[in-house]
């Protein structure tokens, strides 16, 4: 069909342009100021699948989860006023983790803007600091190009969310729509200077050749760029070891011999030690957040830093970099690897083995304290051992935020990239349900959502969405009756004054799941959990598996807030817990 130069309404142009951008799914919730858009979506129902969530926040997290699982931009639509403000946490979550997302909101007609009209809110102003860019469209003639630009900005360089606010009269106004002749060129990355890059690459290669203890640090930027295979080959060549951030998890297969695990506040012991004692850190798309570095002044003082990032402002922001290389990692990293000589650092490898041995010793000591069967609670590590043994390589593991998230980060074994879906930067409790739904629509693999009773309580209404769309989610609900992560801080640093962290709820999660039309089961030991998980992984309905966990379980190791690897806590005596 020749669609060139048809007169269409703004709402129609929006849908056509979304199709142009390759959008196949939109998450959202209708309302008075987007009803025209929903009408056009109904007409386009064979081209775009609409997913109606229970709450706009769930829709935003779903668009985010879709994007994390696929690498394609997630799209969310909400109405003006409360619809738009309900997106805010979801947009901020995507911003902090650099997730490509396009959020579309309706607004009151331009003539009513600024009059405090019904459901009017300045969502443009509200989302300024939490979007990569945002738009308020005042002329229907600008709409198609605005949407094209929004997708370009959301996906190029360092990805991020873009919001487009469209007043109702712009949705109903008509103008000529001309489909784009060819896909627009990739967005430019600000601050790229080819001469400077060449010079920095040369200096970086020199530093690498001089290094005797090289360490590669993989962040979300490298995971998103899909350069893991090249990174592994490179590490073999220069005899380096690899650690990652929370956002870098699952980029490198857990069993790779070069891989040491996650760094940071609850990172693995061996990667924290390797980082501390390295003489060179090659940082690929990570931003040295405070949760990764602890006290920035004390972070890896022995090491020089080579930082590769798509965002010029990340270079030198938190940790001074000897070398900063700005650009798309898919281009800059191969350029760095090219012409690098082979190296061998037996002394470094021997040290790494020592860290691994120590890590194993710590784990074995902790294992001895693991609660045996018959206590009515399961140990977190046991739960993940069961999950690891029953999930398949392509199972996405989605988490909420809290202790369960850190245990998931520490214990889950990954073989494939984009299989760990978790809110890192913003640490959004309530992220998991929406994100798991989006992950399902994105990759079509049944997600295992690991959540806690605190986080689950925030957005469990999305169980209704999962049931409606027959999404066979497996929800592993860690129920310890407390807000475990904050309680852990209170245990360690606040004299066990458990202020507002004891939930003492009487919720029956089995009945709750059943009331939503999902399956619910409560398990008492590891054997029951394995059986329940097996069944849930075959079920055609979402299943909530409630797993009782002891309220005194701690996430260890831990770098105390503001501390460094010098202060790492690897175990807590029984005495301390009394």
């Amino acid at each position, binding site marked *: 069909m020749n669609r060139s130069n048809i007169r269409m309404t703004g709402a129609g142009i929006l849908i056509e342009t979304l199709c142009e951008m390759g959008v196949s799914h939109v998450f959202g919730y209708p309302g008075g100021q987007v009803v025209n858009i929903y009408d056009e979506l109904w007409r386009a129902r064979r081209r775009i699948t609409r997913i109606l969530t229970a709450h706009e926040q769930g829709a935003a997290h779903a668009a985010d989860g879709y994007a994390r699982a696929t690498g394609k931009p997630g799209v969310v639509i909400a109405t003006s006023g409360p619809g738009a403000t309900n997106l805010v946490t979801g947009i901020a979550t995507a911003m902090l983790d650099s997730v490509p997302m396009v959020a579309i909101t309706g607004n009151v007609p331009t003539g009513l803007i600024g009059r405090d009209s019904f459901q009017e809110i300045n969502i*443009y*102003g509200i989302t*300024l*600091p939490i979007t*990569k*860019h945002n738009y*308020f469209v*005042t002329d229907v003639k600008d709409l198609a190009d605005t949407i094209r630009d929004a997708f370009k*900005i959301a996906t190029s360089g360092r990805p991020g969310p873009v919001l487009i606010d469209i007043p109702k009269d712009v949705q109903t106004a008509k103008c000529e729509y001309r489909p784009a002749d060819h896909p627009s060129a990739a967005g430019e990355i*600000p*601050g790229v200077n080819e001469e400077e890059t060449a010079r920095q690459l040369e200096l970086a290669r020199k530093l690498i050749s001089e290094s005797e203890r090289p360490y590669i640090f993989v962040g979300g930027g490298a995971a998103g760029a899909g350069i893991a295979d090249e990174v592994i080959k490179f590490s073999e060549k220069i005899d380096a070891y690899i650690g990652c951030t929370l956002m870098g998890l699952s980029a490198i297969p857990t069993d790779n011999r070069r891989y040491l695990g996650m760094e940071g506040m609850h990172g693995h012991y061996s990667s924290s030690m390797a980082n501390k004692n390295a003489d060179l850190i090659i940082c690929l798309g990570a931003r040295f957040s405070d949760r990764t570095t602890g006290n920035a002044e004390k972070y890896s003082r022995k090491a020089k830093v080579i930082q590769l990032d798509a*965002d*010029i*402002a990340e*270079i*030198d*922001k938190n940790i001074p970099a000897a070398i900063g290389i700005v650009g798309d990692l898919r281009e800059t990293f191969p350029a760095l690897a090219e012409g690098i000589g082979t190296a061998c650092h037996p002394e470094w490898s021997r040290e790494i083995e020592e860290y691994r041995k120590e890590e194993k010793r710590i784990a074995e000591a902790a294992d001895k304290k693991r609660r045996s069967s018959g206590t009515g609670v399961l140990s977190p590590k046991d739960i993940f051992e069961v999950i690891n043994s029953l999930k398949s390589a392509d199972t996405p593991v989605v988490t909420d935020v809290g202790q369960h998230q850190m245990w998931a980060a520490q214990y889950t074994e990954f073989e494939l990239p984009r299989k760990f879906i978790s809110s890192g930067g913003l640490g959004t409790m309530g992220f998991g349900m929406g994100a798991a739904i989006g992950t399902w629509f994105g990759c079509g693999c049944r997600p295992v959502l690991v959540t806690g009773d605190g986080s689950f309580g925030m957005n469990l209404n999305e169980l209704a969405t999962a049931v409606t769309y027959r999404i066979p989610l497996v929800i592993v609900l860690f129920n310890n009756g407390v807000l475990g992560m904050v309680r852990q801080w209170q245990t360690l640093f606040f004299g066990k004054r458990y202020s507002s962290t004891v939930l003492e709820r009487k919720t029956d999660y089995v009945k709750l799941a059943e009331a939503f039309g999902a399956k619910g089961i409560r398990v008492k030991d590891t054997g029951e959990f394995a059986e329940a998980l097996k069944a849930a992984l075959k079920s055609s309905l979402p299943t909530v598996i409630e797993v009782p966990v002891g309220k005194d379980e701690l996430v260890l190791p831990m770098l105390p807030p503001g501390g460094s690897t010098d202060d790492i806590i690897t175990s807590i005596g029984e005495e301390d817990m009394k």
Partner: protein
Amino acid sequence: MRSVIAVYVENKYGVLTRVSSLFMRRGFNIDSLTVGETDDPDFSRITLTLNGDDHIRDQLIKQLYKLENVKKVKLLDEATSVERELALIKVRNTPDTRNEIMTAAEIFRAKVIDYTPDSMCIEVTGEPTKINAFIEAMKPLGIAEICRTGAVALERGSTVLM
């Protein structure tokens, strides 16, 4: 250290909010910000001045670059650029102070642009340091109110920002 930064921006909806909110969000303190349309009405030019260490200044420049509507950011070198600011200063006009005010205004090449029996409004243009000096000179004579534009700056010679 004091820095002067020129920013070339698209004249789009909300661009000034975008630039100014960046300072608060990233914890940068700026001394002045001026903005005005360029010869091309689609673009505006912003001049920023700030006091801060090199790290803060470099971060500010990089963060500005990331804004979609920002087309160019340049740190201006004081030695190779010209800088001007304008201030309007209202001072109390009394028989005792009148002569001293007029003399100081003449020395600073300032102009009296409004006169009443009990007040004078003086326009002074120059580098911000000169404005500061003039204000100091006026203080003991009784300043009623002040309005400063903030600095604008261009590079010397044929060099242009865009």
